[in-house]
């Protein structure tokens, strides 16, 4: 079973309008890199040019903020769920 990545609607349009995409990898970083390769337009919204996470996009791995569990180096297992939470400012 692959890893499932849930995107907010604003990013889903950059992934062929899919709210959830499946990806492969041993770490979160590899998983994100897999998605970035398949959806080049989405890539710069998920991580910077060096492949590092942004300070304004938070990733949750099964409800845990990955910054406290190893960041992109955090290991992932089949069936894990990743949620992408970008900063929004509307009011």
């Amino acid at each position, binding site marked *: 079973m692959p890893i499932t990545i849930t995107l*907010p609607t604003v990013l889903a349009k950059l992934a062929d309008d899919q*709210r959830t995409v499946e990806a492969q990898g041993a770490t979160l970083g590899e998983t994100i890199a897999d998605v970035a390769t398949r959806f080049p337009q989405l890539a710069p919204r998920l991580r910077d040019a060096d492949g590092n996470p942004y300070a304004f996009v938070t990733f949750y791995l099964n409800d845990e903020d990955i910054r406290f569990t190893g960041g992109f180096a955090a290991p992932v297992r089949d069936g894990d769920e990743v949620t992408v*939470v970008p900063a929004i400012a509307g*009011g």
Partner: protein
Amino acid sequence: MSETQTAPGATTFDAIARRLSALPELSNEEVLRYSRHLILPEVGLEGQRRLKAARVLLVGAGGLGSPLALYLAAAGVGHMGLVDFDVVDVTNLQRQVLHGTKDVGRLKLDSARDRVADINPHVTLETYETQLTSQNALEIVRDYDLVIDGTDNFPTRYLVNDACVLTGKPNVYGSIFRFEGQASVFATDDGPCYRCLFREPPPPGLVPSCAEGGVLGVLPGLVGTIQATEAIKLILGVGQPLIGRLLLIDTLRMQFRTLKLQRDPTCPACGTRELKELIDYEEFCGVRKAAAEARAAQAIPEVTPRELAERLARGDDVDVLDVREPHEWEIARIPGARLVPLGTLAEVLPTLDPTREIVVHCKGGSRSAKAVRQMQAAGFQRVWNLAGGILRWSDEVDGRVAKY
């Protein structure tokens, strides 16, 4: 404050602590008005007196500020402060239910004052006709028990957060975009702050505003009432507030999800506390740099709507490209233009004739400026940006073209 009282059935957390003896009494009219609250054991007479004693600062009288002001006034929050400097625009009315059609052109604070007075004459509303700034924020925030963030931009969100951390006031956060919202309670004694969630803002232009990206009209209603609920819980000291939790609201799927939030020990605001005073938030959010870049971008060749109209009327050979999205094209278009959404421009470029004169337009002129730069980089030399986009075309050439 040693003599902290909580309502029966309350979950204990450090609420807005006030001595029972310091709470104002309710008149008989107020007792009747709030009867549906008074019969809730979690509110009761004491809780309603706590609401009456409470001082809540709302930053922004827009989409989120509307339900916040309406419901907190109705609930009997005794003293509300409202910060806003904007005027009611007709495009606000789709979601900003604090204001009505008759209020278009009035200060939002004026229509807010009228509505709040009508809903509940027992509420004192203090208005601040100003932008919240690094110079005035601490002074304003200090007078309140808690702050509710109903702003619409990153610099003010970081400003509100930092002012709350520095003064020790809870920051009831809510944010919306298109069909999705976020809510949390930041800057309490033990909880995380906004910077623990997003250390830095995105660069300007990456995340569109609601004016550019749109927002479902009821969404601020949903998120604002969640913020109002959290504010009331903090005042009453009941339930489990959204401290250390981020609520994600997805109206298309109608899913509500809470994620754990932790205080980041390296957070400069609430962790290391190296942030000792308010900073320049425009600078922090890159707004100044972006403005300078925008000025530099004005080196892009431009044509005004009147000039373009004259050229088209003369029968000049001009290829007019509209780089907006198809749903915008449905709303309004310039006669003779053809639709090439910005995202598809790269594919279409090889089919364009670089010897012809090309004018590019969008809604307001910024997307088309990007398109012109992209075309210049691809070697096109006879390409102009339509200054002010279709909005200015409507103003100056053809008022029948709808503005949106």
